[in-house]
Each structure stands twice: as C-alpha cells, then as structure tokens.
C-alpha cells in the first residue's frame, strides 16, 4: 500500500485548471481533448468507464462479474470500518469495486479488457480485484482472445484485506503464466498512478507495456523512498519517461493516439 498522491480537482463548473501548468481549460474543450491539457499535455486521471468508452466500439462492451463485492473478511477496524468505507466509495464513484472487466471490440478486434479505477480506494487490489482480473484472463484463454489491462492504482495491495490482498499478486501473476503458455497476447497499459502490489504483479507482466505520458509508476511510493534515503528525489523520478529511458516499458502513448496504436498492434497478432 502506497501513500496517496492527492489529485485535487480544481473545477468551477465551467472548466478545470490543469494540475501541472495551471492553465484553465473549459469543460467542453477538456472533453474534446480527452482530458488532456492542450498547453502542457498533462493527462488528467480518468475513471474506468471513461477509459472503456474511449477505446471500445460503442455498444460492444459486455461487463462481467459486475456484482462481485468485498465482504470485509478480516472484519478490519481502522479509524473507520472497512465495510463502511466500501459503501462510501461505492456511493462516491458509482462503482461496485476498483476494477471493471468485460469483453468488447477495439475497432474490429474482439478483446477481453480489465480496467482499474484509481478513484475507488485508490485502485487498490483486494480479493475482488484479484479475482476479476484472474477471471478476465481465464475468459481470454477460454475464448482465445487477447487480454488488455489498464492499471491505475496508487494503493497497490489493499491493506484492509491483509494477506488475502498480498496473495492476489501471486494469483494474478500465475494466471498470466497460464496465458503465456496458451500463447495469447497480453498488453498492459500503465496510467497515473500504478504502484505497489499492482505494479509488482500482473501490470508489469505484459508482452507489451505501454504507459501514458508522465504517469507515476513504481514499486515504493515517492514519499516512502524520500523518508528512507533522506534526500530529494531526482526530477521526473518514477515518471513514465524515467521508466522508458531505463528500458522498463515499451512505449509512451498519448491518450489521443492510444486506440490507433492498440489497433495497429493487434493487427500484427
């Protein structure tokens, strides 16, 4: 579990201010730009449903396992009850959990897709996220389709489910091994932020790994690293561009280009 990086939505009804350069962008323009700042190319965070409608052909998405929820297996008691927190997050986001999975068409390519939503408990992976990702991979195997995951998780493994969450890392990674044995394609897209237990499991195991510009990606959170080493972190540390330079990802693709790039990649398999 990683420290949350607060993303304040600075909005006044008419539009939003860019978190990076401070430019004010009108709502309509922002929608047209797919929530990318026209001045500095900052990519605002997107919800899972927004991402699906951005990539899949209208009306082709069929959701799976939409009624799966967590039932607080440890009876976890922090300052607030985990079970209350889940209900609160469900109300806030309109989602049942931090991942949406299903099938659909990207152009003319049928695919299985799993998208985590960083707004729901920081996109952290507990039993439900682990199970839905695993089932998505199994569905890909059963139907012999490519698997596409889009990760946005500042939370990593969800601490409120203790060891059950940690073991979802092993579970999702072993089903990717199965996918490989079946010689099926797995493309992993990393968005801001992809950290901790999600980064250290399925999200890092794609045949092809694509990141959005400037996305924060890594194992340990920047604050934990700073506290450990007692010095400032280099400029751009753990950003997509930093990972690209060090050979950790295949490419960085802007949101507006993503569908075209994916489609052309899928053409080759």
């Amino acid at each position: 579990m990683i420290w949350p990086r607060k993303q304040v939505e600075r909005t006044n009804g008419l539009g939003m201010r860019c978190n990076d350069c401070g430019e004010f962008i009108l709502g309509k323009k922002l929608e047209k730009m797919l929530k990318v700042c026209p001045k500095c190319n900052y990519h605002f965070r997107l919800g899972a449903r927004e991402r699906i409608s951005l990539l899949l052909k209208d009306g082709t998405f069929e959701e799976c396992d939409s009624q799966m929820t967590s039932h607080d297996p440890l009876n976890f008691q922090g300052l607030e009850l985990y079970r209350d927190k889940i209900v609160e997050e469900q109300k806030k986001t309109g989602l049942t959990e931090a991942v949406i999975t299903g099938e659909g068409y990207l152009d003319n390519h049928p695919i299985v897709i799993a998208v985590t939503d960083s707004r729901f408990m920081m996109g952290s992976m507990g039993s439900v996220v682990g199970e839905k990702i695993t089932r998505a991979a199994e569905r890909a195997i059963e139907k012999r389709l490519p698997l596409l995951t889009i990760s946005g998780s500042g939370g990593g493994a969800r601490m409120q489910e203790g060891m059950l969450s940690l073991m979802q890392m092993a579970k999702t990674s072993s089903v990717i091994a199965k996918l490989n044995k079946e010689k099926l394609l797995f493309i992993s897209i990393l968005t801001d932020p992809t950290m901790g237990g999600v980064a250290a499991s399925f999200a890092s195991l794609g045949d092809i790994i694509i990141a959005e510009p400037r996305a924060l990606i890594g194992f340990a959170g920047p604050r934990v690293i700073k506290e450990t080493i007692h010095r400032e972190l280099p400029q751009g540390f753990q950003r997509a561009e930093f990972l690209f330079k060090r050979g950790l990802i295949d490419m960085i693709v802007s949101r507006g280009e993503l569908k075209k790039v994916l489609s052309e990649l899928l053409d080759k398999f």
Partner: protein
Amino acid sequence: MSTNHLDFELPIIELEKKIEELRRFTSNSRMDLCREVEALEKKAERLKREIFTNLAPRQRVQLARHPQRPHTLDYINLIMDGFYELHGDRMFSDDRAIVGGLCKFNDETVLVIGHQKGSNIQENIERNFGMPHPEGYRKALRLMRLAEKFNFPVITLIDTPGAYPGIGAEERGQAEAIARNLMEMSTLKTSLISLVIGEGGSGGALGIGVADRTLMLENAIYSVISPEGCAAILWRDKRKAGEAADALCLTAQDIIKLRIIDEVVPEPLGGAHKNHEQVATLVAESLKRNLSELKSFSIKEIVRRRFEKHRHIGEFLELREEAISVRGTEDGDEK
C-alpha cells in the same frame, strides 16, 4: 544471555533473576533453599507459558524482529550440510540481502534461498537490513532455474521488512523483478517450500514466497504492509502500529485460518531467539516431512496443485442478478 529484552518478557526476567540470587545465596551459605528455588522455577515456567501462549499480535511483531532470532544463514549452518553460496544475478551485482546456494539436506541436494538480516548494526548495514534490490530477486530466480534443471527441491526462508525503497531499486525495476518471480515461481518445475522464519514483509517477502507448501514459525509474521506503514496511512500516526498489527491478521495463528499457509512450526518456549538449536531441529523436522510428502506427486501434479492453491485464495461476495432485481423492487415499493 541476551540483552535485548522485550517489555512483555520483564516479569519472567525478574523472576529468573530472583532464582539466580537464591541459588547464589544457597551455595554461599548453609541454608538449604532448594525447595524454594524449585517452587520459583515452576512459577517462572508457568508464567512463561501463560505469557507466550497469549501473545498479542504486536508482541509477535517484536519477537519476529528480535535481532537475536536465528536468521537464514544460522538455519543453513545448523541443519544443512556442505553449503556453497552462489552469487550474483549475472546482470548487475550480488545482492547481500538475499543469499542462495546448494547444500545437502535430508540426504539430497537442495537449493536454499533466503533473505539475510544481520544480528547487529554492522551486519545489518552489510545486509541492507534484509531488504533486497531487484538484483536479489533476479539472483533468486536464476538459482531456482538451476534447481529446476536438476530437479532439486527449493527451500526459501523469508525474513525481510520488505523490498528496498530506493532510487536504484526503482531504476532497475523493483516491481518488475518481483512480478516476474511470482509468475515464474508459479510454474517452476520442481517442488518449492517457503518458510517464514521472522518478518514476512509484503511483496518483498512474496517475491521468493510462491510455493507448494508455505510454513510459518510460531512467532513469525507475514503482512501486506508493515504495521507502521499501515498506521501512518490509516491512522495518520505511526505510533498506532500496535493497533494496526492487531487489525492486519499478520500472525501465523490468524493466517492459517485464512488457509494461506499450510502449517505453523512451533518454537521453543520464550521464542526462537532463546534456543537456536531447538528451533532449528523443529524446522528441520517440518521441512523433511513436507519434502517427503511432496515426493509422492509428479512434477506435473505439483505445478497443477500449486496453481490451484493460489487460484482459490480470496474472499468476496457475488450477488446474483435476481438478488439485485429484488432489491430494486423493494426500493420501488418504498417510493
């Protein structure tokens, strides 16, 4: 005698001091206090048993991190023969926080890998407090491939606060290194046994912990996050680590109920640090038994069962579609 006493051990320590004094007094005088000493010894034993069978999770955390607790190389020296350490990931360097090598155990060649903590500051600096970099995980995987090639069983000993959070670690792909180990271990074609001997810190522990049998020592812990880290996030106060330890279900006794581990290996009364030889004997007995049980399966069956075991970890609710629609009608009626 160990100088690192834990707070909850104090009543025992005090009683033991008293017994010591009485003994000295008896030997220096003509008075026979044997009976008194005997009574006190019985009392101390009872007190120990009482304290150590009712340990709170936060106390087990202290025991699991005890600097005098036996670490990986101690177990190797105590129960394995002819150990040769093998070094390096062949790409970047040799991570001293993870040791690995070949040895003879139970009359066969075994590959053993483990996190290595130090027993003092000097050793801990050398071992980076048992916190591996990516090259440690890559070395571990390289050695596991060697074991696979010759069908040697693999034993991993887990004892780490976590994978190291640093600049170099991130630059060299800490997340990828751990993820790859999880994936590769899940299909490794030889038998794998993991034993948590002290601290099982999150992904950094699991990175060498995907196994056919997962065992934990009685006072070991295994957790998704350190109690301090959890307290800092959920309580916004690191001093609430005790509460976090209670909430996280990180003791062997709690985790076996979740069916994530297969066996709790007993420790000598008072904890593993009180008697290295005794705990090592208990560990050897358990490892031998589990190794021989795994021998009755073919490699193919072992890998299949390993997948199934991990596939079924997780607890959740699945509401059926009907349940949803019923709830919808009720909402409608209320209006």
